[in-house]
């Protein structure tokens, strides 16, 4: 399923670690603190456990939103937006 990971983290070091955890899970960076990509339930659980151990639970906040494909089709993108096909793994490699 498609998953949004959105975070608000105070410490730069922690923020970098969380960003790396998201990228290593295989999701794409669509904004500075927003990631989007295709993960299964087990991968979502694993990522949330990983992030939970990195962040300060008293100060930081991380949202992990699942999103169904039907709703994703209704997403409106304005301005400098991400490639819809890329984040849904419809295309694996981009040739320029």
């Amino acid at each position, binding site marked *: 399923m498609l998953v949004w990971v959105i975070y608000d983290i105070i410490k730069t070091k922690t923020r970098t670690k969380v960003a790396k955890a998201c990228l290593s899970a295989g999701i794409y960076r669509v904004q500075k603190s927003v990631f989007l990509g295709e993960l*299964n339930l*087990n*991968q979502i*659980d*694993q990522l949330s*456990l*990983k992030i939970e151990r990195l962040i300060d639970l008293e100060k930081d906040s991380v949202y992990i939103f699942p999103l169904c494909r039907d709703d994703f089709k209704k997403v409106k993108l304005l301005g400098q937006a991400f490639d819809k096909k890329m984040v849904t793994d419809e295309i694996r490699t981009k040739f320029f």
Partner: protein
Amino acid sequence: MRSEPNSFSEAVELSVTPSLVLEFLFCPRFIYFMECLNIPQHEELRLKVQLGRSVHENKQRINKDYLRKKIGCIKKEISVYLNSPKHHIRGLLDEVLWLKDGTLAPMEYKFASYRERLFRTYKFQLTLQALMIEDNYELPVQRGFLVFVRSKNHLLTIPIGDRERLQAKKAIEQIFDIILTGKFPSRTRSRAKCADCCYKNICV
């Protein structure tokens, strides 16, 4: 591929761990890849497995003498390695509990959240442990306990009956059949499991 045993006694010496039975329940092809082709799944690299193992280590150190009075526990043993030649099972049990009613019970810690439904694998694991306990301690086992670490140590009691014991023994027989004949079993009926399978790249 592993060659067939020369005699029945060689086959009889085989034994399985409850973990291997759980792999079989996930997908019979796990047994083929792990035992016949000797391709390890490297589960130790998974974060959830690592965290689960650390939980087990902590349980061995912290509050060792704690007895759950609510379930009628009067004595317990921690991290018990048992071998049952009769049922061809061996394995490490988290806890063996002595209960007030004169029965014994296995207790298993799960690094998981408690959901309303009870998974088949949990039942099988406790049943296999019950068979090992009965064979080694020669006392009856009527129930097992699960502790869900990620749900504030929620305790779940699971009755273990003859039906469960038969199913567990049947699963062991099927595992032996794959190991001894080296036949390629059919995959699991649930294709959803394939998405998260470590062998998906080599499974046809």
